[in-house]
């Protein structure tokens, strides 16, 4: 009974959807204000969701209907599942086992895979180009992201997010050594969420809507919601790994601090997406491999040195 509550209501589907839409509003409003626009009212994301849900679902004749319909659901499911292993307001996540860090990263990769498959099975040319771009991009940002998240884990000498939280609670201010990794993960998260400058798979001036060109109605609404939830889960993961302070404040204050951390990350993401132009796919890949990956190595090296000399 409790698990159903966890999955459907808190911190599962309902909470994440509400928080995701709220974060989408914060993102859109902040971006609009930075661009000298008024921006949407607070209920706009919800209104968009309701409007899209009420529209007709159009499935291309050539497309594979079952795959086409399955993909948005799979994207949401994977993103929601990941939240259960992330410590939110205390050191204890809902479920924990040793090695859950890898599982969370894996689950966060699934939405990108669904973008690829959804685009591929749409059989539209624009979708297919978008799908291939999404996958190409995945190979570029995933390695720096993985390495920079493993660095703090290395310092804590564990693969479990719970153990990591315990370690960083016992050693406050150690998170300051991981600032570099935080920056790298932030940039990689931009790629994961397909935001400017890495919105190459859905570059509207080139390939219309990219992966989502053929999606409409409820399925598109679900995909959009999936991306919103992915943003929250990604931000929560970054908060748990890089900002592991204030975990012993108790449920209410801890929860507020968690919301604050996630919103800070969301705001930083929207500032980043406002100040850059979209890169080309070749530029994006060479940037990830030539700049981000070496920086992630430096972060790994810092943590190795720290582990060797300070933490015994």
């Amino acid at each position, binding site marked *: 009974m409790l698990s159903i509550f966890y999955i459907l209501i808190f911190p599962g589907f309902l909470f994440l959807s509400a928080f995701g839409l709220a974060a989408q509003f914060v993102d859109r409003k902040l971006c609009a204000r930075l661009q000298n626009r008024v921006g949407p009212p607070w209920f706009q994301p919800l209104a968009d969701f309701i409007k899209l849900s009420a529209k007709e679902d159009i499935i291309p004749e050539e497309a594979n209907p079952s795959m086409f319909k399955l993909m948005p659901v799979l994207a949401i499911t994977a993103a929601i599942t990941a939240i259960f292993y992330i410590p939110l307001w205390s050191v204890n996540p809902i479920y924990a086992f040793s090695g859950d860090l890898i599982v969370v990263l894996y689950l966060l990769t699934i939405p990108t895979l669904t973008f690829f498959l959804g685009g591929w099975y749409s059989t539209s040319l*624009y979708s297919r180009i978008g799908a291939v771009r999404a996958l190409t991009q995945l190979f570029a940002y995933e390695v720096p992201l993985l390495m920079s998240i493993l660095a703090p884990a290395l310092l804590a000498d564990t693969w479990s997010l719970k153990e990591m939280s315990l370690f960083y609670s016992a050693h406050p201010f150690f998170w300051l050594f991981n600032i570099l990794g935080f920056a790298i993960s932030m940039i990689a998260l931009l790629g994961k969420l397909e935001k400017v400058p890495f919105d190459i798979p859905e570059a509207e*001036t080139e390939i219309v809507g990219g992966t989502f060109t053929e999606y409409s109605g409820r399925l598109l609404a679900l995909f959009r919601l999936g991306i919103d939830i992915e943003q929250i889960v990604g931000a929560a993961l970054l908060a748990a790994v890089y900002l592991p302070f204030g975990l012993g404040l108790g449920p209410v204050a801890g929860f507020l601090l968690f919301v604050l951390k996630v919103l800070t990350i969301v705001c930083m993401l929207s500032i980043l997406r406002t100040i850059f132009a*979209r890169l080309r796919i070749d530029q994006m890949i060479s940037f990830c491999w030539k700049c981000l990956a070496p920086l992630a190595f430096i972060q790994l090296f810092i943590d190795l040195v720290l582990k060797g000399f300070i933490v015994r």
Partner: protein
Amino acid sequence: MHKVVIPIGPQHPALKEPESFSVTLSGEKIMKFSARLGYNHRGIEKACEERTYIQDVYLTERICGICSHSHSTCFVQAVEEIAGADIPKRALYIRTLVGELERIHSHLLWLGVAGHEVGFDTLLMYTWRDREVVMDILAMLTGNRVNYGINTIGGVRRDVTAEQGKAILKAMDTLEERTNYYIQIATKETTLIQRLSGVGLLSNKDALKLGAVGPTARASGVDRDVRRDDPYAAYAEVKFKVITDNHNDVYGRTLVRVGELLETYKIIRQIIKKMPEGPLTVKVPRKIPAGEAVSRYEAPRGEDMHYVKSNGTEKPDRVKVRAPTLANIQTVAKMLEDRQLADLPIVIAAIDPCFSCTDRLTGIRHAGKRSKSVLKWEELHAYSIRHYREHGIDFAELNKKMRKALK
């Protein structure tokens, strides 16, 4: 690698007007590019022959939504040349003033569109906000934001007062400050430079060979500007530099356009300062004597050309319009050689295309067949009657009914 042909247009988010490009891709690389125009053919040249010269001024103004003043001035200049009218100085200064204000709004608009094409929407929002300053000035001067209606044959229709002059000078200061900021963005923002530089290369030789005009040519080092080379209106009496650049790419075209903005502010300041007193129009007869003239005008997008032939009546015999985009569209295929799909929107946008101004003809492609044909005027007329008859509308009967009703 597997080749795909993707259609860009006639309806596509990157394009602001309907036109169709077909791109053969190998992966992300463009192998072949072909353009098909003609979706916006409105028969303006033919319509000009059916109307009087005064009506044609307003019709030519509607050839383009952005360089509307360019087209009407170009047309008016040709007619005035045939009529041998001596236009008052003040009218020429006001024409130049509106023309340069139009250049500001067109170049700021382009900068925003270029930003949008490379996914830099913040630039779009900023430039279009600042463009409102000049749009307000134009609305104050002429009463309209786009189709100013300030030209008439023999002069201009509205005067510029001293207060308006002051407001313009104040707006120029604001815009100059903003333009300097955009120059800073264009020359310092890394992602923007990465997307612009080296993209859409057009060598000096190719620019000359393909007949590029305007900022597209000037960014390839072609030092040509009708305002300086063949001065019209009041350009002989103002000092300005012709901005050229040797980058040969989209980055160079951006620099040329923002550089031209700064020159335009200088021109406008000089015009306001030097504007002579005097009448606004000179009387030109309704019937223009037989003759022909070609008029050139440096529109924001490049050299605009109008040819007018008169036959002594109040309607022209022939009007021919060569919009700058027609001269520039040939260069796009060259610029896209060996480029990536991601570069396509910005390369097309970099010539600042205006396809509705360009379309002078519609080719007919028969579905299923590969043949193309051209309809003559009589055939088109017969086709339209047949088409409407098939859809249940018979103009012959309608005419009869109308005649009866009138009796």
